[in-house]
């Protein structure tokens, strides 16, 4: 199940990469959901004032949406770092995705007191790596092949 925060994070990362509104198809692809599911959630984000969807162009986050997306991305980074550095979890990406909607930002902030997160977070997040670019981890393809 993908939550609103996971959609916001995906839209934010695609917008950053493309420097333009995020195509619904790309959002669906990143989250591994059907375009219909993506459209439905994007509609919900619009009604909450977090995103704006323009036909044939794609979806853009509002200022409030950007703030929430960056918070969600930061929480995700904290969980990934915590899983790698403290719990030594190999499948940290899959577990972080499972945990990100269960772990509240307040809880993540407390975990943040024992991990060595960089001050540039979450701008150092690398979508290709699906992890913080400062972390010494295998690229996605190699991790999947192991």
């Amino acid at each position: 199940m993908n939550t609103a925060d996971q959609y916001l994070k995906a839209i934010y990362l695609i917008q950053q990469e493309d420097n333009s509104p995020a195509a619904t198809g790309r959002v669906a692809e990143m989250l591994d959901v059907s375009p219909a599911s993506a459209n439905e959630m994007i509609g919900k984000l619009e009604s909450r004032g977090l995103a704006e969807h323009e036909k044939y162009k794609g979806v853009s986050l509002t200022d409030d949406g950007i703030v929430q997306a960056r918070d969600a991305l930061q929480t995700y980074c904290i969980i990934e770092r915590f899983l790698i550095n403290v719990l030594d979890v190999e499948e940290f990406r899959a577990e972080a995705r499972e945990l990100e909607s269960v772990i509240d930002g307040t809880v993540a902030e407390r975990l943040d007191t024992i991990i060595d997160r960089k001050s540039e977070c979450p701008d150092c997040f690398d979508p290709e790596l699906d992890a913080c670019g400062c972390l010494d981890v295998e690229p996605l393809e190699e991790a999947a092949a192991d």
Partner: protein
Amino acid sequence: MSLKQRVESDQQLARLLQIGIVLEEVAEARANNHRESLPEPDAELESLLAEAAEQSAAHRDQLETLIAGLAADSIPFDEIDALVEASYGQTKPEDFDGVLYDQLCNEETAYKFYDDLIEAIDASEATFSVDREHLLSVLRELRETEHDAVETVTSVMEERE
């Protein structure tokens, strides 16, 4: 923001309980550090921090018992203590208000964590290796004591205003 996902497997539950243990360990280690580095003696605060550390250690034991039923490992306290120690210099509160505020964060975070976890377990129909009712009753008890701890710290803060 509240929880929007269910706990669906033993593995996910074990991981969440491990996170609970770490949160309790962070709370215990920080309370001990605060108590040892108060800017000047303060019997009320020292007693509050000692009780908080003791309570966190007791909660950790309860979580460890649950984790043992899921065949997952706990996280040794000395590992977390060392991590807290390593970062304490940068995150250390500067005065009594800061110590109380940090203590409030410890208790509120633990409360929020247990509250979200209970909600996620309630929302799931998964069968776990540990008895669901026992699991929920332990977590509800932990949530209740965290709630009381939040009220205790809040009242000390209000008295000192």
